[in-house]
């Protein structure tokens, strides 16, 4: 056991993961890349080699050369409407393929169908987020190898640096042509951006595109060109549209959350970043969306013209683009119908890959240009470390998403959250799991006010300068933590086993924390 830079005991060797000696988290910007990028096998398909079209997932699995023990990847643009992960795993099971490592960009509730494949040994290892019943199973020790969690930027970094080699990438394609050109913009299963799939397409040894909307060659526009795609498979349906895109996401009407959003907006207004060119990411949650609404008012009132909006894009951001409050949108994931329509029709709405969005090891990801990001967290501690992975019962139920990347990249990282979720305090002495280190978290905003990280004296000064109706209510962290303790009462510690069931990597590939096994009596139902 050795302590890493956020004081977490990390075993020197983690069964099913490897040695951590050289890979202990040492600080948000401590590790630099060495050597060259990894590469995929060179393939060639000449004019006389026949087409790449196949009629079924089964044929594609056979043609791809997929064998037991290999690593297969998926993107999560179809979210909870995805049919592809389950279809591919079912076919693998039928073909007698076992011991697979699955490497999704994220998993959703719909993927609980993989439980029997975990139990029967078809799936041996998961590198990616787990939730719902799969998360419960993993938390209770139901998977031999630990789940490896990476951020949206850490994942492409791992592929490009050669930490993970993808044998076969299965790419759900809302539109594709016979040459393997792929797009997410059209078709009944349209999902907009295909940002998470780009790196897999470039670095996998074999790429299979699965579509329910096969078009003549070539489609336009093209997200992933057919030069990377080995096979195109036509399937009945790649997903359920109602699970792929949500309806319009609404701003919260809960007065408590509106108050928190109001305080966050005041903090942004008081900060040195509230000026022309302001760029921000707020995601689709209730509070962040309300912050966006308040910021829009403030920008209009003070005549500030924004720059770009980043990340998962919602209809609300599209509205800001149309009204000229933002000049561009950079979209790695389109959350709702409005976003899908906008990316398909407006050239100012740019599709970006996860690498481009958030990878720390390229020549400059979009997150580095970000002024402000509003994030959530299940808990934050008195060192400002944030946990987004484990719940209060210690169960591993959430992925990292872009949390680490945007926090590291943005000039102002705000975690906005009610002080209590139910009876569970969101400010504690020590988070159960460190996802994002306190050195890149600038402020916590709750219904009691704004708590600025003491590392950011300039921000504290800026808040103190704001007077009158722009005043920012500042609350010291100790006071906030004490208030949380008083309201929630004494908590029984989570009983944990020694076994590591999850490894949380910082975006540079170092181990920032591990998640240990819990027991059935722990689980909140």
């Amino acid at each position, binding site marked *: 056991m050795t302590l890493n830079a956020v004081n977490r005991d990390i075993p020197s060797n983690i069964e099913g993961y490897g040695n951590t000696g050289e890979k202990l988290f040492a600080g948000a910007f401590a590790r630099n890349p060495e050597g060259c990028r990894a590469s995929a096998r060179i393939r060639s398909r000449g004019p006389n080699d026949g087409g790449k079209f196949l009629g079924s997932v089964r044929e594609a699995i056979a043609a791809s050369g997929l064998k037991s023990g290999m690593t297969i990847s998926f993107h999560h643009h179809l979210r909870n409407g995805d049919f592809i992960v389950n279809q591919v795993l079912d076919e693998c099971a039928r073909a007698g393929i076992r011991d697979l490592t699955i490497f999704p960009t994220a998993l959703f509730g719909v993927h609980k169908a993989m439980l029997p494949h975990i139990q029967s040994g078809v799936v041996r290892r998961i590198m990616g987020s787990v939730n719902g019943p799969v998360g419960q199973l993993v938390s209770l020790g139901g998977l031999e190898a630990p789940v490896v969690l990476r951020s949206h930027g850490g994942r492409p970094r791992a592929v490009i640096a050669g930490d993970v080699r993808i044998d076969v990438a299965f790419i759900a394609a809302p539109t594709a042509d016979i040459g393997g050109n792929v797009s997410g913009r059209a078709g009944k299963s349209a999902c907009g951006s295909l940002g998470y799939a780009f790196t897999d397409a470039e670095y996998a040894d074999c790429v299979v595109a699965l579509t329910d909307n096969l078009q003549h060659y070539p489609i336009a526009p093209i997200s992933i060109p057919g030069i990377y795609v080995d096979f195109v498979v036509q399937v009945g349906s790649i997903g359920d549209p109602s699970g792929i895109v949500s309806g319009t996401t609404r701003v919260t009407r809960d007065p408590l959350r509106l108050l928190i959003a109001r305080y966050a907006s005041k903090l942004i207004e008081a900060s040195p970043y509230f000026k022309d060119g302001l760029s921000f990411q707020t995601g689709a949650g209730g509070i962040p969306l309300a912050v966006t609404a308040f910021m829009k008012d403030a920008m209009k009132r003070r005549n500030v013209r924004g720059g770009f909006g980043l990340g998962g894009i919602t209809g609300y951001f599209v509205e800001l683009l149309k009204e000229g409050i933002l000049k561009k949108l950079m979209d790695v994931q389109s959350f709702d119908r409005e976003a899908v329509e906008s990316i398909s029709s407006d050239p100012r709405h740019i599709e970006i890959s996860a690498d481009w969005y958030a990878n720390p090891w390229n020549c400059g990801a979009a997150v580095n240009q970000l002024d402000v990001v509003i994030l959530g967290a299940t808990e934050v501690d008195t060192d400002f470390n944030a946990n987004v992975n484990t719940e209060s019962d210690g169960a591993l139920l959430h992925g990292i998403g872009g949390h680490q990347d945007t926090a590291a990249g943005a000039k102002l990282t705000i975690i906005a959250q009610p002080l209590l979720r*139910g009876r569970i305090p969101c400010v504690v002495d020590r988070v159960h799991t460190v996802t994002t280190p306190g050195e890149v978290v600038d402020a916590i905003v709750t219904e009691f006010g704004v708590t600025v990280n003491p590392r950011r004296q300039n921000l504290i000064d800026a808040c103190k300068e704001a007077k009158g109706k722009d005043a920012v209510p500042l609350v010291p962290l100790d006071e906030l933590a004490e208030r949380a303790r008083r309201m929630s009462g004494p908590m029984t510690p*989570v009983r944990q086993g020694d076994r590591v069931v999850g490894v949380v990597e910082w975006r540079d590939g170092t181990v920032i924390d591990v998640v240990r096994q819990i027991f059935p009596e722990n689980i909140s*139902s």
Partner: protein
Amino acid sequence: MGFTETPRTAQAGTVESMDCLVTISASGERRQIEISGGGVSRFRAAMEQKINQVLDGLGSSENIAISVQDNGAVDTVLGARVEAAYLRFRGVIDA
């Protein structure tokens, strides 16, 4: 019509977030406490203590089963729900 007498049961609370549903019924044993839901994993001890404190304060000594379906209630809410359920159980206040 020949209805048999059902055991007396009283409830207070809701299953809304930050609330709890408390059900009290007659039991063979003295003060059985059963808690399920959100707070269980980290607050069982604190919740049991609060429930006992409220019932003792009301002078309860009968054989009752208290079932709490918790959705994140803080102590003051839990205490109020237990008190209301108990007073209803005793017929002191209307359901």
